[in-house]
Every structure is written in C-alpha cells, then in structure tokens.
C-alpha cells in the first residue's frame, strides 16, 4: 500500500478488523497520546477577568467536581482520537469520530454558564446531525465495495469508493468538529479550564487529518 500515509509499519489484525500504523498515523497517534498524558497530569488554569481601564481583576471559582468531570471527558476524547488514528476500519473510524464529537460537547457542558451551555447545545445539534452523513457514508462504502477495511480498499485492484461517498464521509467529519461548523464552537472556547478546552481543537485537527488520509487512500 503506497498511500499518502506511507508503508504500514505495524499491523494488529483482530479478524477482519486491522489496526495499523503508518508513519502518518503514528505521528498523529503520538500527538494524541502526549496530549492525553498532559491532560492527565496538568493542573487546570483559573480564568482571570481583568477590568478594562483599571487595576481590578477577578479569578473565576471553579468547583473541583466540575474540573474532574471535564478532565474525564478530555481523557475520553483523547482515547477516542487515538482510536480514530489507528483503526483500519471505516465504520470504526465513523464511530470514533462521533465519540470525539460527544466528548467535545461533554468537555464544555459541565461549565455553569448559560452562554457556554447554549453554545455546547447548538454544537451538539450540529454534531448529532453530522452522524447522518458520517454513518451513511460508511454504510454505502460497504454496499458499493463489499468491504470496510481501509487496507483492502487501498489495494490496486480494489473497487474504488465513489466520490459522492467520500464527500459524505468528509461532510460528516466536518460536522463533528470542523470549519465551517466550527463557528458554533467559538463560544465554547470562552469556557474556563485551559488544558481541557484545547483537547476540543486538537481532536478536531487530528480527525480532520486522518479523514483526508482515508479519503485519499480508498
């Protein structure tokens, strides 16, 4: 397989579901792993509001339980991103991607601010509607080619996936955390709690890079 990702370095077959690392996905996997470890060990920041034109500032109080929940969600998001990086199965990729979407909503949903919750809700609606093209794309891949394995689809003699289906997959991943639907997430970034919120952007970036690889390979 000579794709955009390069030769697979390592394969772990579970029946017809094969986990594999190419140099490309290995890089992304390590990035997700390092950031997940950082989320586990780092201490969250306190958001500081500075009063404009004066010396006064105020630090926002955030409860421990809220931070614990958000850390859990960030770790789950990191695990889901890692899964999306290593999987060799298109349907698994769709599942991990929608899991990333749910976790992104969960990271900010614990914040006790109406604006942030409103943004999280709107983003959740987008992510939920994006599961339709995502799963539809994965199912039509199986219907047109008879397999879901990325490795088999990458073989030279394999049936090529129709362009429309690739567009569906990409649209689904975009809805789970990409521009232009990203606008709904901008408000979410105003939520306090530095390392956890960044997991939203990082996971989006990773699944975006991975879906490009998948779409160009199959």
């Amino acid at each position, binding site marked *: 397989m000579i794709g955009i990702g390069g030769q697979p370095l390592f394969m772990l077959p579970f029946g017809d579901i094969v986990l594999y690392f190419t140099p490309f996905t290995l890089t992304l996997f390590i990035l997700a792993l390092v950031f997940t470890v950082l989320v586990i060990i780092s201490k969250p920041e306190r958001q500081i509001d500075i009063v404009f034109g004066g010396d006064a500032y105020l630090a926002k109080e955030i409860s421990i339980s809220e931070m614990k929940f958000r850390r859990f969600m960030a770790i789950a998001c990191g695990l889901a991103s890692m899964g999306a990086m290593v999987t060799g199965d298109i349907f698994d990729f769709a599942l991990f991607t929608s899991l990333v979407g749910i976790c992104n909503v969960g990271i900010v949903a614990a914040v006790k601010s109406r604006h942030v*919750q409103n943004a999280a809700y709107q983003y959740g609606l987008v992510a*939920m509607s994006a599961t*339709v093209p995502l*799963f*539809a794309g994965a199912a039509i891949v199986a219907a047109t080619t008879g397999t879901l394995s990325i490795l088999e689809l990458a073989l030279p003699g394999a049936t090529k996936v129709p362009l429309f289906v690739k567009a569906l997959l990409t649209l689904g991943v975009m809805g789970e955390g990409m521009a232009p639907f990203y606008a709904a997430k901008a408000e979410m970034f105003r939520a306090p709690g530095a390392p956890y919120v960044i997991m939203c952007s990082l996971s989006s970036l990773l699944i975006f890079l991975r879906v490009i690889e998948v779409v160009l390979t199959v």
Partner: protein
Amino acid sequence: MWNEYSVGLALVMISAVIGFLALLREQDDLHRLLIIDLVEIPSLAIIALLGTDLAEALILPGLVVGIAELLALSQIYVTKEGLRKRPVRGLHIEVVERAHAPVIIPALLVGYGIVLSGFTGGAVAALGAIFFVISRGSTDSYELVEMASGIAWAAWIASFFVFMFFPQYWYAGVMGAAVGILVKVAAKMTLVGSMWGEAE
C-alpha cells in the same frame, strides 16, 4: 441501475432531506432536538439497507451513538433552561376506578422475550418490564437492576472470550452470550430515564 438498493437509498435520502428542511425551519431548541432524533432514523435505515448480517452488527453501535448524543443533549437542555421537577398541584381529574393493568401482559412479553433470547428478546422482555413498572406506578430504586445489568454485560464479554480462546466450547459461549445480552438489554431499557436519579 434501479435495483432494490438504489430505490431504497433514494427514498431514505429524500426522507433525510425532508428532515433537514424541517430542521432549517424550526427555531425552538427542544423541537430541533426532537427533529434531529427523527433525522437519525434515515442514517440507521441506510445501514439497514445493506441487508446482511454485517448491517445488523453495524446498526447497534449506530443506534447507541445516537441515543448517547440524545441523552447528553437533553441533559444539557435541562441544565441550560434551568428546568427542575416541580410537583403539579390543583389538577383534579375524577377517576372512577383506578386499577392496575393485568399482570398477564407483561408476563407474556417477558416469557416471549426469553424464548426469543438475544438482543431482540431483551428488547421484548424490557418492554414487558417497562409496562409492568409504569402500570404499577412503582418508585423503587434500581441499584440492584443496574448491578445485574453490569454482571450480564461481563458474562456477555466472557462468552466472546470463550469463542476466541476455547472454540470447542462454542455452545456454552452461545448460551452465555444469549442470556447475557438478554438480561443486559432488558435491564438497560428498564433503566432509561431512571438512572438520572433524583437530582436535588
């Protein structure tokens, strides 16, 4: 060109487009959540159109993801709108005679579910259990049912390990998996709506 799959796909796509159009026109947050739940059904239908046993295996995770997102978003909606359970007062409906539903209906459903076994049987048995609980107006706590669900799930996983490592004992694996998934699905469906607990 126009075989059964294409016709089905076209129909499902049209219904998905109708659902998305409704989503565009709707402004109310709660209604949009409900419409999105409706729109998810075409995506399950597209998977079901595969018509193989693979489709059956793929529908389950798709359904679970949809339900998980629906539960998460409805919880966010409840928090965001500040909704809380409030007792209804001053509602006097004259009821001549309030009687429990006959036990035979849930008993039949649960019995039929056990005969069916597996996932479908679990769903049927759960329907019977939910019917029983609702018709009795029970307010028991469900910690024990939650635990049974967890143990059944573990049994289900253990049966899969039997398939993988000791294929000669496949019959024990089949039975363990069937009973495990039956109890797990039945318990899970009874729990929907009760596991949120009594907040406040």
